[in-house]
């Protein structure tokens, strides 16, 4: 076999490709230690998040607002402002990455805070580009009655192809 053919064969073998990550030696002590650490860190992370929520947002006053959208073809969200009882509690300017994550079906936790029991008025102001890339600003007014359980509100931005307009809906999660 000529040197050239040997080279070709070696190259062929070295070019066998798999799109999967070929597993390194998972049995090595270092890898095992890293896996153990990761597992511990995930548990720690979980515990600390729960602790943080328990400290900052006790269940009886906890109030969260989420935001979701469907294809986002009729409305490109730039920002959202959230008011509770006429007081601005959250504003968010969207990055391209966040918008893509929303369009792909992700749900954003826009706000988490505390709210006293009773009736409250929530106003969400959506700004962005509407149909035909025109500036679009829309306010949604929601009346809620906060009880003693945590409350979750989802703001939904939905494309309405029949009207060629975005629809803004609210869902109160039980």
């Amino acid at each position: 076999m000529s040197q050239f053919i040997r080279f070709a064969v070696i190259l062929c073998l070295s070019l066998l490709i798999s799109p999967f990550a070929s597993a390194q030696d998972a049995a090595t002590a270092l890898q095992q230690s890293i896996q153990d650490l990761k597992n511990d860190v995930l548990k720690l992370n979980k515990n600390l998040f729960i602790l943080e929520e328990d400290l900052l947002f006790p269940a009886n006053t906890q109030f969260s607002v989420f935001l979701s959208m469907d294809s986002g073809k009729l409305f490109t969200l730039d920002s959202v402002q959230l008011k509770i009882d006429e007081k601005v509690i959250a504003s968010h300017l969207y990055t391209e990455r966040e918008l893509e994550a929303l369009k792909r079906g992700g749900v954003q936790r826009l706000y988490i805070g505390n709210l006293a029991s009773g009736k409250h008025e929530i106003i969400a102001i959506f700004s962005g580009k509407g149909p035909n890339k025109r500036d679009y600003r829309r306010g949604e007014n929601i009346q809620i009655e906060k009880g003693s359980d945590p409350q979750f509100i989802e703001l939904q931005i939905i494309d309405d192809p029949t009207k060629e307009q975005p629809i803004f809906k609210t869902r109160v999660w039980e």
Partner: protein
Amino acid sequence: MMPVSTCHPFLISTLGLLLSLPLTLCAQQERHETRVQDLAYGTSLFHLFQQKKLAAITELTVADEKGMLKNQRADADLLLGSLYFEYGLPKQTADIFNQLLEHELSTETRHKVWFNLARVEFEQENFDQAEEYLSRLKQPLSAAQESQRHYIQSSLQLNNGQLADAIQSASAIKPDDSWYAYAQYNLGIAQIAAGDSASGLNRLKALAELKTRDKELLALQDAANLVVGLIAMSQNNPDDGLAQLRKISIKSPLTSKALLATGTAWSRKNEPKKALAYWQLLIKRGQPDRATLEASLVTADAYEQLGNKALAAQAYDLAVKLYEQQSLQLDQIIDSIPALELYNSLPDDRLFSEATIGSLKNNPALFKTLTTLQQTITGQPFQQALQQYRELLEIADTMATWEGSLPAFELMLRERRQSFTSKQPLVEKALDLQQLDQYQHQRQALAAEVNRIEQQQDFLALANATETDYLQQLDEVKSLLERLQQKRDVTQEREKYRLLFGLLYWDISTDFAPRFWKLKQQLLQLDSALQQATASTLSVQQASSRYEQRLDALNQRILQQESEIKRLQSSLSELILRQQQVINQLAIQALQQRKKNISQLQLSARYSLARLYDELSTQSKKKP
């Protein structure tokens, strides 16, 4: 476009997206096919789609702990299992999927779990288990998963040496699916290795003709073109080889090999000048790779073949010097590896685009090292080690953030405790059970009085304020009459007194029943109010005690997490150092291997040079 390493096919396919290859998957940004029925599932996806795996995992595990995954538990577990796998925790992944199988699942979900387990085992190179899980699949999966299933099946069959079966399995993958390209490549190489080079070459040629703009697929096509070109030349078909080699991108990591091979092809066609042009171009590019080093040697060979022995001797001499210089440079690079901190200075761009390489030029030492090590760095073992190192750094960041948050948690808790303590006097006042006892005694006395009124039919006891006033006045009149009757006749006045008292008594007595009923109602209301007061007092007492216990428990949790963070930070520091050593070691090993190659080339060049000098010297001796 997002980096490949952050968008793993395993995860995406688990999510059932109608996509196939890493870069394409990210670029196309398809909508997730499972409807969100639990908010935590949706928020986890939101993090995942931004490549924040740790946050995505945390979202699901927190929601699980709080019982907030009531509507799509199986979907959440499927997602969590995939996220764990992405995060390099295969055991936990398999545990989640296996636990999921213990529950009552829809046939579709059960198939998804089996399929995911097959992929986990396949990636872990547990091929028997992977085959076992694949054999359980009795119904079609989603389109993307079907393609991947056939890819895995085909790869497993290739691994078992069942080439015909592997070809059959791969034929089920649609050509527009990216799994198709990988399957075709592997099949092509396997066919060549098995001796059926005609079929293998045709397969690779077809793969190279696929229309694509995907970077990874283009790189795969370059590899296919190179293999086809080399095999064609090894079969004495340099024209075919050249045609194939020309298709390789000039910016490919395989360009040096392609230039070397192109020169060789021209040499085979007895066109040494053209061959030299390619090799010299290769040398001029100055890439510190093996092909470039070999070019120096083959250039000298070519001069020799052209009969220009003096030029050949000069070229061999240059090659020897170049190899010496390269060898010294490699020593320097090896020495500089620890100080260069490759693990921190490497770019995120795994494919080392031109722009990335350009951006490194302001750091010559790093630039030299990275270009020398490009093939090693872009290889799987190095990339895995690097990714693991970066994950450790991410963990360190997370820990530092939490560590920084703990004083705030403690402050918050202190303030709550202070607020609680400041309200204690009020609470204690509210919890005064002695006062409640007094009220109870008063109530008992009132009840006894009501009882007496009823038994004695003491109508006057229920007189209202005006009547009581009248009764009092009448009483005074009566006393006055008793005093006056000794002085004069008061019969008339007495009669009037009797009449008025009678009238008043009549009024009061006839109204006794409703008044008594009202009184009893009031007594019942008092009972109820006292009961409520007792219950409220006890409730406040319990709440106060519970609150205190809760504050203590929160304090305990903060302390526990504090010590856990310290413990993990200590092992994390050690692991980071060890991982840095692993990365350095991989780089040094590659450089040492390169040195070995250079020594072989150097030996060969020195031998050729000596031989040539010998021949030249013999020739000169022969001359008269």
